[in-house]
């Protein structure tokens, strides 16, 4: 259950719209069911009242939308940012991807977002309604006579279980209290894989990546993937193959995708959230983050505007590529 309510957000947005601070609001639009929300631009108070929603399923990271939306809108756009979104926000500013002056950022607290697949795994399919009661979700289905009550913490999205920070690193205004950076266990799964034998790891990824349908959702949702022209869309790159024709293509795509955002990935987890095949893509990104932390010192992309990512930096004393295995392997 979120600490902040839909009504509070609408009130804040309405105020800012009415006093002319902003001319549009980037928020979550109501869906057909209680869990399918669509990022929507609202420009009047009326629209907000009819279509704005805030609940446990508002996972989408709005930062990337600012690249396109700030181009189109006269005046400022109000954006609500959860703590993890603010890291992407900063990272995009570092890369000069949108005009900070055109954005009014309101930080909002987040208690972690729910994963509808996890909800359905408990409640069963055929959801009629999802309500909330304290820290519980009350799920009414077409098939169960009684509503199913689920503890919100049991259906948290993976990225929220391993939330790295409740602290907002960028905002113009903060609603609620400032949180703290959390000592998370987000690298545990990476370490678990590292501890496996190479054969086991290969089998693990072979199984996961074999499901890829190359829909590009991971790339298109990623706030770090904002190239005007992606190498995978460039017919002259030699890798524009559009389909995971075989195991090599699957690996190539995912290695390069993760590599291109290495050092810039804020670990927002959008890639895994949007993957229609539930491939744990965030593990690839986290591996890079973990490696860079280990090799070159702690670095959190987006913690501040203008940070110098490890891969565009160097020291004369860096370890040699051959040495990485002596350190990392099997003892993390």
């Amino acid at each position, binding site marked *: 259950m979120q600490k902040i309510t839909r009504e509070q957000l609408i009130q804040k947005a309405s105020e800012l719209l009415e006093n002319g601070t902003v001319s549009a609001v980037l928020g979550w*639009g109501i*869906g*057909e*069911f209680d869990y*399918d*929300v*669509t*990022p*929507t*631009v609202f420009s009047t108070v009326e629209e907000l009242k009819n279509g704005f929603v805030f609940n446990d399923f508002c996972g*989408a990271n709005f930062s990337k*939308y600012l690249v396109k939306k700030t181009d189109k809108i006269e005046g400022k756009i109000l954006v609500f940012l959860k703590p993890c979104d603010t890291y992407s926000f900063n990272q995009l500013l570092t890369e000069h991807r949108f005009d900070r002056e055109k954005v009014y950022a309101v930080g909002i607290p987040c208690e972690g977002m729910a994963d509808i*697949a996890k909800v359905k*795994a408990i409640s069963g*399919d*055929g*959801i*009629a309604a999802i309500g909330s009661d304290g820290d519980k979700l009350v799920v009414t289905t*077409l*098939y169960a006579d009684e509503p199913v009550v689920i503890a919100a913490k049991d259906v948290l999205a993976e990225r929220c279980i391993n939330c790295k920070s409740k602290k907002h690193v960028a905002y113009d205004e903060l609603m609620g209290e400032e949180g703290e950076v959390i000592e998370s266990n987000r690298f545990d799964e990476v370490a678990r894989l590292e501890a496996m034998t190479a054969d086991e790891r290969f089998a693990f990824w072979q*199984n*996961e990546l074999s*499901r890829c*349908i*190359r*829909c*590009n*959702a991971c*790339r*298109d*949702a990623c706030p770090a993937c904002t190239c005007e022209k992606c190498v995978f*869309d460039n*017919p002259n790159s030699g890798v524009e*193959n*559009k*389909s*995971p*024709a075989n195991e090599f293509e699957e690996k190539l795509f995912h290695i390069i995708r993760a590599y291109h955002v290495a050092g810039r990935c804020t670990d927002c987890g959008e890639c895994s*959230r*949007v993957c*229609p*095949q*539930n*491939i744990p893509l965030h593990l690839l990104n986290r591996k890079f983050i973990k490696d860079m932390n280990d090799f070159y010192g702690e670095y959190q992309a987006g913690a501040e505007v203008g940070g110098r990512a490890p891969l565009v930096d160097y020291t004369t004393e860096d370890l040699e590529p051959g040495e990485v295995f002596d350190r990392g392997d099997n003892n993390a």
Partner: protein
Amino acid sequence: MRKCSLDKINLLFKEIAKNAELYLPQDQTDGSATYKKWEEGSVWSNVLNTVRSPKDFFFPQTEDLMAFKTEGKNIEVIDTRKALDDFVIFGVRACDVKSFDILDRVFLSEPVDSFYALRRSHGVIISLACGKPSETCFCKTFGINPAEPTGDISAWKNDTDIFFEANTQKGKDLLEKLIDLTEECDDTAVVEQKAKIDAIMNKLPLKDLKTDAFGGGKTAELFNAPEWDELSGACLGCGTCTFVCPTCQCYDIKDFNTGNGVIRFRCWDSCMYSDFTKMAHGNNRLTQKERFRQRFMHKLVYYPENNDGLFSCVGCGRCLVKCPISMNIVKVMKKIGGKKR
């Protein structure tokens, strides 16, 4: 009508797999299901439907069309088509069975696509009625009855048994081979099952979705609707909806240079991609709005116009579940169709 006890279902699978490759929905490690080849020990999944639609069987995501060998200025075209074994797809839902009709009208119309036709002729479809439709199901909107799935053999399942009824000669032949494992029965249990499904269908949240506002000849009316801007506003331009869709059939033909020759292959393409219509001298669908509009106009207006009013959507609900931003055909139909113009 013939029935088989669910206890003996694996014997039934084994018998089918003796003569043909058998594919059925099986669980994957991530909790979803996909069609996999049956082998001893395979377990039939309980999920309502698979993430990937069974269109893969007839129109795979990637398939080689031909190969070329080049030597100096000369080119040799090598036909790489191979003979195909018979295969059986088990547990196809009513919506997905209907999707084959929609694909047939594209690929089997003149000139016939021989790659598709070959697969189609070797496949036997055993459909399965939906006992527990999901909230995202809206097949009824398109005149599909999940209690009456078509296909070569229709099947219904209750708690104890599975019931079969052959609809085509292919289906009859297959059921004939299963005669020892099945027994003749009347349709009492199936009628009961159908009534249950009908009752559920009337409770589904999308049961009242109507297609009245769409169909052939509506291009002028709908193409410039102001709602497209708003609807497409959040679209990421990924291909998830098109790739999980059982009726999306757009493809690309590409060449892959292997170093020893060239393979020309065809793969799924998505109208949502920016390079879908990109030519050397420009692109006629420059923004995501135009690409987004193309997808839905195609399903709801253009396709029916060319195919006697048949819509190119079967209401399977995959795009509702999988779209990263939860924008989908239902929202489009309600928004665009709900307006008086």
